[in-house]
């Protein structure tokens, strides 16, 4: 994709992610969702910048703050809303909900909440791509909190020792629910943990979609060339609570205020203007269109039917 087209498309998807999540926050407060709402405010650059480095035949294993990656791949906003509403047309037919959506046909693996279970699963996807002799890549996402569990370690180790074409993204948004970074790890950062596995690790500014994209490009290229996995730590801030029910009072207001000034969508828009890819009206138009799309998808999903029990035990096994 040409540089301008890529940049504009990234901005569009980031804006859409923001608009859809803002719309879902409103829907949550209007009582239209079934349960909790998890959003990725301030994760837009990470979600989109990384996904944009992949081919359609590559595979992703994202988590709950990576809506932009799903949207990049072709998941429709109404499908996400349907998942949070338990609708029959949700990606899981209502059998799962909230953030547990994905579409294997788009190369997106549906996650579970036992994070980072998706890390070893992504290594398996990478294994399969390599096994079949393709140069496909699998990209896995987790947050700072999830790095504390064994699956983080086992996946990185396995991928490195088997030289699997994996890219591991750690979205360091500094809080795991109410647990601050200082209670999650004593290490200075996550990127340097990569050396323990014999793979490269880089830390990037998670607000800057271009920086994220560049790091992702490099990691993907490395993996495609058969040099094995790498780790990208993208630093941002979790601007909303863990979920919408969480007021996140435990975040020091200073920290929140500092990071509030660094909105990745705004910064991307400004950068596009700087680069002459769009003018300010163009940027505003993209965002307005995103909000319009979000509302249209909401209206579409509201009237969709809820699923009825239908041979539930028969769905458990594949034929």
């Amino acid at each position, binding site marked *: 994709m040409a540089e301008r087209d890529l940049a504009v498309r990234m901005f569009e998807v980031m804006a859409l992610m923001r608009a859809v999540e803002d719309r879902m926050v409103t829907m949550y407060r209007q009582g239209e969702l079934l349960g909790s709402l998890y959003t990725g405010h301030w994760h837009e650059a990470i979600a989109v910048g990384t996904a944009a480095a992949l081919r359609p035949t590559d595979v992703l294993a994202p988590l709950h703050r990576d809506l932009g990656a799903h949207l990049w791949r072709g998941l429709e906003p109404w499908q996400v809303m349907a998942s949070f509403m338990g609708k029959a047309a949700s990606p899981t037919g209502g059998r799962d909900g909230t953030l547990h959506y994905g579409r294997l046909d788009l190369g997106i693996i549906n996650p579970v909440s036992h994070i980072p279970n998706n890390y070893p699963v992504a290594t398996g996807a990478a*294994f399969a791509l390599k096994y079949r002799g393709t140069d496909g890549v699998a990209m896995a996402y987790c947050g700072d909190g999830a790095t504390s569990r064994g699956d983080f370690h086992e*996946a990185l*180790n396995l991928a490195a020792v088997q030289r699997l074409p994996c890219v591991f993204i750690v979205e360091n948004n500094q809080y795991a629910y109410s647990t601050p970074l200082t209670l999650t790890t004593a290490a200075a950062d996550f990127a340097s943990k990569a050396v323990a596995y014999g793979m490269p690790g880089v830390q990037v500014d998670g607000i800057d979609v271009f920086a994220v994209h560049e790091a992702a490009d490099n990691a993907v290229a490395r993996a495609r060339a058969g040099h094995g996995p790498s780790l990208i730590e993208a630093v941002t801030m979790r601007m909303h609570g863990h979920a919408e029910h969480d007021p996140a009072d435990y975040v020091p207001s200073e920290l929140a205020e500092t990071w509030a000034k660094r909105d990745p969508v705004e910064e991307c828009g400004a950068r596009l203007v700087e680069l002459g890819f769009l003018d300010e009206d163009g940027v505003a138009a993209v965002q307005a269109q995103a909000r319009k799309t979000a509302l249209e998808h909401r209206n579409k999903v509201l009237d969709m039917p809820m699923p009825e029990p239908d041979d539930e035990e028969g769905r458990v096994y594949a034929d």
Partner: protein
Amino acid sequence: MPTDTAVTTVSYLEAIAEALGSEMEADPDVFLIGEDVGQFGGAFKVTKGFLDRFGPRRVVDSPIAESGFTGLACGAALMGLRPVVEFQFADFISCAFDQIINNCSRHHYRTGNPIPVTFRAPFGARLRAGPTHSQSVEAYFAHVPGLKIVAPATPQDAAGLMISAIRDNNPVLYLESKYLYRRIEVPGPLSLDPVPIGSANVVREGRRVSLLTYSVGVHQGLEAAEQLAGEGISVEVVDLRTLVPLDVATIAASVNKTSRAVVLHEDARRLGYGAEIAATVQEECFWRLDGPVVRIAGKNTPIPTSPLLEDAAVPQLPEIISTLRRVATT
């Protein structure tokens, strides 16, 4: 060296190896992953020679990372490969519990995408291997929707069920009996026809009491039945072969015929899989029962190492015989 007139025998272990090798030959998407499965040929030598035969792409020596390689298998299976995962001892499957329960077993229900993975787990006691190398793990996993569980007792079934497990589009937990690996053999050659999952087998017909069992219990049951036949007590031995899904029709037909059911397994009694079997028999056959459904099972303790202690912890032939006799005549 075998001659034209030599009779070849196939052991339980060899049957597994033969079936595994045959499926790998037939389907290029089948690969093996586990600890020491390649270079070493497997801790029990089930996969001896496989690395040379199939190469390192298809026979993967993993680091000690049960959760990691189980998750890897799930991801690979989602992409259409057919992983066969070996846990060196069934006891270590607990390290992968999270991946099996949360990623693997319920994935198809949630998404409609199949995960065709086979988990091989050498299980069971009687080898003086102690509490962390002798476990029976079927009870935990029988509870989980989305898994299938098989436990062959004979070399023929070991081969047939391995083939079916690999071909099944669902995660299948394949429980191989360490105790039976080299202890039983049958005349070759082996048939490599798949044995259907979900099908029990009446290995000995009888009239007086039905013994419902699997794995080692089948062999104990046959021996007990032989002895009791001399006392005029006719025991029907039903080899369950598959634990999940349970072949309720065969079980019910047997118990409806004999009116007495005894369940036998090595696993601890409390919420061992026999509890599910007993409850099912009670539901299906109550009005035809001549007495309560009885379970013979291991003690509610970990499996001890020292011989006399271990022997006392798991069902032995005298107890099986006297329980069958009591049920048949009281």
